[in-house]
């Protein structure tokens, strides 16, 4: 019954949102009703073992060993809460996890031993990549995960044992692991921040998701992606700001497929900066911004990609070598993405070559620069062909408000620091987006507490900070 209500609510809310977007001058911000579930959790006790109920607003909690939300139970974190995770603890969720920070009072889950650093970030000396606390590991019985306006800082300490069977292995080092093999979970990750982690920030299996308006910095040590959904996931990754990722910001792959549910991700209006330079894993030289692989469907539009190892990549299908095989090239579509590079080796990969991996990225006329014209596609171009991109270096500067380009520190500038990636009014990214070439995915409940705060549709401007202010709110 609840489900039905939710299902009915979705289109209504979506329509409401679509309508409200048209009135872009609106800045009304009415506070949501604050809810409490179950008993309040004591902020004086050291938390360890089974946990349920509500962490109350603006209080500070200390977790001293792994805490587990049992099946049927809920952990609710209200706004302004700080959860200090000590002893590299994990949060294991077999029930429901909800963290409801707000724009004015975000919540924090962090490791008190760590402090953020600015400027040049070196893999082996920046503690951001080492994992402080563990992660949030959600099992098959966790059907709802909601994270809003919450900072996940310094997560990813390696698992010392398995949190539950049939999922993560010892040594896994994700910040959020969410897996519902039945394909029936809902995963909401919105308006939040993630700073520092050693591997994939978020790994998903079998869920509906909305990952929107987040900021990720310093994710992945010598490998790992920002958001890495595997088999049976359908949802949006939009209006996210990525900087200094080891590999991709957004990725999708239908590994461990769930029969009849092919992974499909709408990756739009994201901004990817300085991505892909720390991937030195065995399968090195993967992409560095957005990647669609392994029979998954990607809708890659309206993104800005600056000084990343590669442009967005649609994996090709020799089905013969490497761990990666072809994307669903029938259902995938892409275009209207701006790519900028300060060196030839990066410009040489605006449309990735096949040295590391078979490729099937079709150069697009709608991309900036127009790679279809540049590479003579169709015509003499073959997928993955190696080309000389030196003439593209320094072209199409997106004109960020405060991140002057060229910037040659792209391998080591991995955090936002004082920079501002909003667009200057003269930016070539303004007005170049599409709002019609594809539709965002509407499959999660929309609810101030138990669902998405809103699915922001694609914008006419590129990147995560469109000039109408509807995108990333950070």
């Amino acid at each position, binding site marked *: 019954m609840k489900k039905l209500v939710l299902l009915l609510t979705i289109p209504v809310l979506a329509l409401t949102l679509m309508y409200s977007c048209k009135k872009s001058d609106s800045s009304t911000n009415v506070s949501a009703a604050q809810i409490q579930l179950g008993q309040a959790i004591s902020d004086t006790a050291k938390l360890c073992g089974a946990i349920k109920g509500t962490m109350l607003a603006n209080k500070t909690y200390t977790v001293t060993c792994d805490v587990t939300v049992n099946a049927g139970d809920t952990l609710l974190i209200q706004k302004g809460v700080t959860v200090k995770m000590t002893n*590299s603890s994990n949060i294991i969720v077999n029930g429901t996890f909800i963290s409801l920070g707000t724009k004015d009072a975000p919540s924090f889950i962090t490791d008190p031993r760590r402090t953020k650093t600015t400027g*040049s970030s070196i*893999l*082996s*000396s920046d*503690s951001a990549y080492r*994992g*402080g606390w563990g992660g949030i590991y959600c099992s098959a019985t966790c059907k709802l995960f909601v994270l809003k306006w919450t900072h996940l800082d310094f997560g*990813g300490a*390696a698992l*010392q*044992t*398995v*949190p539950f*069977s049939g*999922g993560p*292995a*010892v040594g896994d080092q994700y910040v959020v692991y969410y897996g519902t*093999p039945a394909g029936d979970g809902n995963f909401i990750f919105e308006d939040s921040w993630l700073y520092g982690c050693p591997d994939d920030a978020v790994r998903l*299996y*079998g869920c509906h998701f909305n990952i929107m308006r987040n900021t990720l910095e310093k994710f992945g*040590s*010598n490998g790992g992606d920002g958001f890495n959904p595997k088999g049976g996931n359908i949802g949006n990754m939009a209006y996210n700001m990525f900087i200094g990722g080891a590999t991709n910001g957004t990725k999708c792959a*239908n590994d*461990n*497929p*769930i*029969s*009849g*549910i*092919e992974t499909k991700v709408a990756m739009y209006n994201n901004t990817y900066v300085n991505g892909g*330079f720390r991937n030195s894993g*065995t399968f*090195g*030289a993967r992409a560095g911004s957005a990647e669609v692989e*392994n*029979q998954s469907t990607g809708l890659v539009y309206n993104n800005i990609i600056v000084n990343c190892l590669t442009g967005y990549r649609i994996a090709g*299908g*020799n*089905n*013969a*070598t*490497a*761990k990666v*095989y072809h994307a*669903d090239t*029938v*259902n995938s579509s892409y275009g209207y993405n701006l790519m900028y590079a300060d060196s030839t080796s990066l410009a040489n990969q605006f449309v990735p*070559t096949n*040295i*590391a*991996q*078979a*490729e099937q990225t079709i150069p697009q006329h709608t991309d900036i620069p127009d790679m279809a014209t540049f590479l003579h596609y169709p015509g003499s171009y073959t997928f*993955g*062909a*190696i080309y000389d991109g030196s003439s593209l270096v320094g072209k199409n500067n997106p004109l960020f408000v405060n991140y002057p380009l060229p910037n040659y*520190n792209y*391998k*080591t500038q991995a955090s936002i620091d004082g920079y501002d990636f909003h667009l200057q009014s003269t930016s070539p990214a303004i007005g170049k987006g599409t709002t019609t070439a594809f539709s965002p995915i509407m499959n999660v409940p929309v609810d101030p507490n138990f669902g998405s705060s809103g699915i922001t549709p694609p914008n006419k401007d590129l990147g995560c900070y469109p000039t109408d202010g509807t995108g990333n709110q950070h």
Partner: protein
Amino acid sequence: MLKQKILIIFSFLFLTNILSFAATIKGYVYDKLSGEQLVGAVVSLEGTKYGTVTELDGKFIFTKIPAGTYKLKIVYASYQTLEKEFTVADTETRSFNLQLALSYSTLKEVQITGKYEKGSDEESQNREKNGREIMNVMSAHTISFSPDITVASVLQRVSGVSIENSNAGKQYVNIRGMDKKYNTTLVNGVKIPSPNDRDRYVPMDIFPAELLDRLEVIKSLSPSMEGDATGGVVNMVMKNAPDGLICSGNIAFGYSTIFNNQQFLNFAHNYQDWKSPIEIQGQGTYTTPDHFPLQSLVTYPINNPINTNYGFTIGNRFFNNKLGVIASVSNQNTYKGYSSESYLQSSTIAPAPDKNTAINQPFSDLNYREFSTQSQRLGMMTKLDYQINDNNSISLFATYVSLNEYRVRYTSDSTLGGHPLNGYVFYNEVDTKYETRSTLQDIYNATIQAKHKFTSNFLADITVALSEAKQQLPDDASFTVKQLVNVDSTNKVTIAPPEVGKMSRDWYRNTDKDITTYLNLHYAPGFLRGLSMIDFGGMYRHKTRDDYANRYSLSAVVTDTAHGANNQPYTGSVLNNKYYFANSLDPLGSTNDPGIYTYNEDILAYYGQITYNITSRLNLFGGLRVENTNSGYTCDLPVTVAGKSATYVYTDFLPSAQLKYSINDKSDVRASYFRSIYRPAYGDLVPNTQKTENDDYDFAGNPYLRHTVIDNEDLRYELFLKGSDQLMAGVFNKVIQDPIEYSIDRQSATVDQIQPFNFGTANNYGFELVFRKYFGNFGIAGNYTFTHSQITTPKYKPYIGLDSNNKNTVYVDSPSQTRPLNGQAANIGNISLLYRSPRNKIEAQLAFVYTGEKISLVSPFYNLDLWQKPTLGLDFSIQKQFGKNVTLYLKANNLLNSGYELFIKGDNNHYSGDNKFRFQESSNYVTVEKDFYKASFLFGLKMKL
């Protein structure tokens, strides 16, 4: 030696000159215990000039002997001299079958005789024919003649036995076509535990052949034997105390020619710590990278390594021969090497383009590897026996064997890309990995046995045995150097300067301790004619096993930040590498690894069996064994996860009946039935998800496994011709209930992991042929087994179909697939050609071993099983003795250059085109791995001291 020559010359002269007499005296000489023919025994008619030596089949002949009374005398080193008086008439032909007993006689067996037993059967041809069980025996004498230095190599000469040739070497036995896991290993009749960390089977190459008195391979189970040997049992009987003082030794040297082509690499294993840092510093201590000395990763070549082998045996008998003592030690140091090329299978499989099209196995890397292994074997045994009086005896055996292997593995790993270059798919990265590993295994066993005779027809023996098997891999270390490969638009290749990659430092060890008590009672009743023996008794074993693993992973410190690079250039020496822990918890290692387990197993078994000669031709041997198993494990999984511990209690009733019908003196028919079991491997139970070494698939045990029960039926015809010539043909059927095979469970996990499961009932049936024929100094022996084995298991096949909106989507099918059991080859055979010239003291052997194709790894995916190609091995050995004490030998292995090769059946899209791979042979299958052993020649010198 000289005497023998003179005898030969004299007999030759005599025979050619005097032609008028016509009696013929001939016969065969055998080892009394094993029934093996004895070659080169000196046979003479005492007081005459007639003399000869026995031929390869143990045969001797004197022709044209004058009528009269003679004393036949047989002399043979290390055997008791036998004399036999007889009278022969003119034109008469007299035949003898003579059995020599070892002068190393065992403790005088306390013999019992039934009332209706006729006493020892003089005409018996051998133990194999008359044994109640189906058994093959190899004597110490034969073993000492062969150039084999480990029991594993000796075993491949036993009929019906083949040795699994894997990249770890020749280690495991396959008996009558049954995989290693279905066979057990005994020392002096006591089952010994395995040093393996997961499995029950024992590596046979740990045992030096020199300690053995004889080797028995028993191929049919009787109730007095433990019920978990479906294929067969290998029993190593250690040397027995001699009749008088013996003191012998030998020393041998050898060289393997593989090191003409490949460098032998060694490393400083003295830098390896026995314990991991957390054990030294205390649980919970965060270690630092300086606790991992880099010196153990430095490799250096050894030129022309010389294999050595020496042994020494001393024994005597005291107190009026009542107390016998023997002690033997053997030490071997050998060097071996080989190389391999393989494509690494990726676990990420693309869906088929539609439901009816096949899926393909993709490959992510091409690995080229070179191995250098130094093996140090030490074997020691001692036996004491004391004959208290005619009715009581006591003996004590102790055996210790150890095998320390020091291995350097060099891997060049090319990460395959999507770019074709120079005709092959090209790579984008080359990682070079050096791995230094010490694998230290040892097994000891101490057994005390007492025998007591209550009455002339009632005997009891009791045995208490302590055994321990241990394996340790202290500080198994590796480090990687990485190089990125780039190709520009003109196809010019640039390989980036090497960077330091990861370093791993792992500690593993496991021990398995058994204490076992056996009580056997033997009663020869007089109340029923034909019922010659009733045996009954029992066994109790308490087993405890534990396992430890701790792994550390370290990453390269970034030292070059000048150009914004995030790497550490490799200087060419590992000693300059700098490492750190990339994850904050990495300094703790993996001491909480939930895969770490302890296991215990209590087995209480009792049995009764009878030997009943229903008629003079029909013999029944059978009875019932009951085995009660009470076992369980505890692992380090958190209590919040199912399967942290488990207990298993079950009772098996194992009936056995063997009927033998003697058609005549030379032939018989045997029919047998027995039920046997297979208990799951320890590591197959523990449910923790583990990453496998090759990153292929995760592996998880299955705590819900049931043990396997096998019903075995056999029908065989045996024909014993003259001498040791023999022909045996048989058919068999095995019904295997709940076989344990590997598959994937996709329902409950977000990762695909291989797991063992029970799969219904499998059927193995087939036939077997064994023959042996001698022609003077030549002999030919062979055996062949055909096994049809079949099991159906669900597989997994993703494909692309259309959904209700006519859009592409991925579906996952679970088709059933019928295949042979894992590791079961349909065709196994071997043929040996033997030559022995006692006169010239030359011995040679040419041996073919054929193993048909078999599944090496069951893939969870439909039609992607990994098969091992048929192998045809050809080994040749020859040795010549000079004087009394020196033997030169040459052993040529793998003359046909048959390698270990793995492949996947189905269209090979790597045979041509842009995705072409190296070493592909056919468009009909993908060659995944090829190990190049090459022909190797080992030559050496053996000296008896």
